[in-house]
């Protein structure tokens, strides 16, 4: 661990443009917890109570969500969002779990009113073994200079997303449900 940290520190020191941002004292446990627990809704991003997140534990996803396809009828033509729902119950919509040869994909839309501020992918059971391995690695190497959670009042989020057909399918259904005013 020490070697890895020193190597990274050396790299940063050698490039004057870069600074290593040190996490606060309480940062490491948060990050470790997040790594161990998998995708967990963050208090900063989710204002509403979170009663039924199918990501935890992932293996207990409701059977109803396991259907592979539930194609929306409207398709491309109806691009305008439906009128805003009167009183959204929560701030997220979960797409169906869609199988592919490498595992399965399920997306969650996180909303601010009727705006999508983030799209995330739930980790699926097939990937659990690898996730555990990565988490252990992360945990053993975390120091004080850990990446930590931050950010409020965000207008949008930049991140990497999947481009597989199963991702598209889950996403399509989730957006369709969002436009109908459904929330999970």
């Amino acid at each position, binding site marked *: 661990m020490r070697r890895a940290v020193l190597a990274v520190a050396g*790299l940063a020191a050698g490039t004057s443009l870069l600074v290593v941002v040190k996490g606060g004292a309480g940062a490491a446990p948060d990050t470790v917890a997040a790594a161990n627990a998998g995708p967990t809704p963050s208090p900063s991003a989710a204002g509403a109570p979170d009663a039924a997140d199918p990501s935890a534990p992932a293996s207990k996803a409701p059977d109803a969500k396991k259907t592979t396809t539930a194609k929306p009828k409207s398709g491309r033509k109806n691009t305008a969002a439906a009128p805003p729902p009167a009183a959204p119950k929560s701030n997220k919509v979960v797409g169906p779990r869609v199988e592919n040869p490498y595992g399965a994909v399920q997306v969650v839309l996180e909303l601010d009113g009727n705006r999508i501020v983030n799209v995330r992918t739930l980790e699926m059971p097939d990937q659990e073994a690898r996730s555990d391995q990565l*988490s252990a690695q992360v945990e053993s190497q975390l120091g004080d200079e850990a990446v930590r959670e931050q950010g409020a009042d965000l207008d949008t*989020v930049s991140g990497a997303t999947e481009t597989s057909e199963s991702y598209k399918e889950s996403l399509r259904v989730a957006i369709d449900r969002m436009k109908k005013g459904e929330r999970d």
Partner: protein
Amino acid sequence: MTEFRVRECMGTVISVELASGGSAALLDEVFAWFDEVDARFSTFKADSEVCRLDRGELALADASADLRLVLDRCADLWRETDGFFDGYATGRLDPSGFVKGWSVQVASDRLLAAGAADHCVNAGGDVRVRGQSPAGRPWRVGIRHPWNASASCHVVSGTDLAIATSGVYERGHHVVDPHTGRPATGLRSVTVVGPDLGTADAYATAALAMGSAGVRWLSGIAGYACVVVTDEGRKLSSSALSSVP
């Protein structure tokens, strides 16, 4: 009046927010552009121009101006990145790593020209912002936390920014170093910020494929800044991009 629309297109979710100077007709035009890009560049649609060119059914000379421009830029970026950005990385023509960012950049340029000076376009995490948010302040863009999909680990704020992120958090280390054929390791997430989104997108992909060496490579590029999270959970960021409170 703020105009906002979100739709699935190009294999991802695209949202467009116009904080001023917008109209439903303008949103129609923007999404018509993304549909055009999808039809032309999709690697999933057998009749797309990219697929027809790849199968040899279309001569380069007969390709559209957009496709030729994209191929030229991909060739430039291949050289600029020492081959780490490769439009043929998957064994066939697949310029997706550039097209998504480029198409958003074009959409943003057109919005600006049409008088919508304050806008935010986000296509699957590739973001282009200009002007101010509906709250009357610079746009605030979070960078996804690599180990918590619903949290951010950094905030970038500005009135004229292109922000692209490549990461391996969703499928583990699947980005292959084109020179060794082995998965690149060392970096978990790379965000590149600068003036052009197609370029930022390609740089982020390339740096991720370089692994740890990508941090040094990125720091030598003029006009672009970065936020990198390593496999060890460390965050390295350009001084120009100190996280906004």
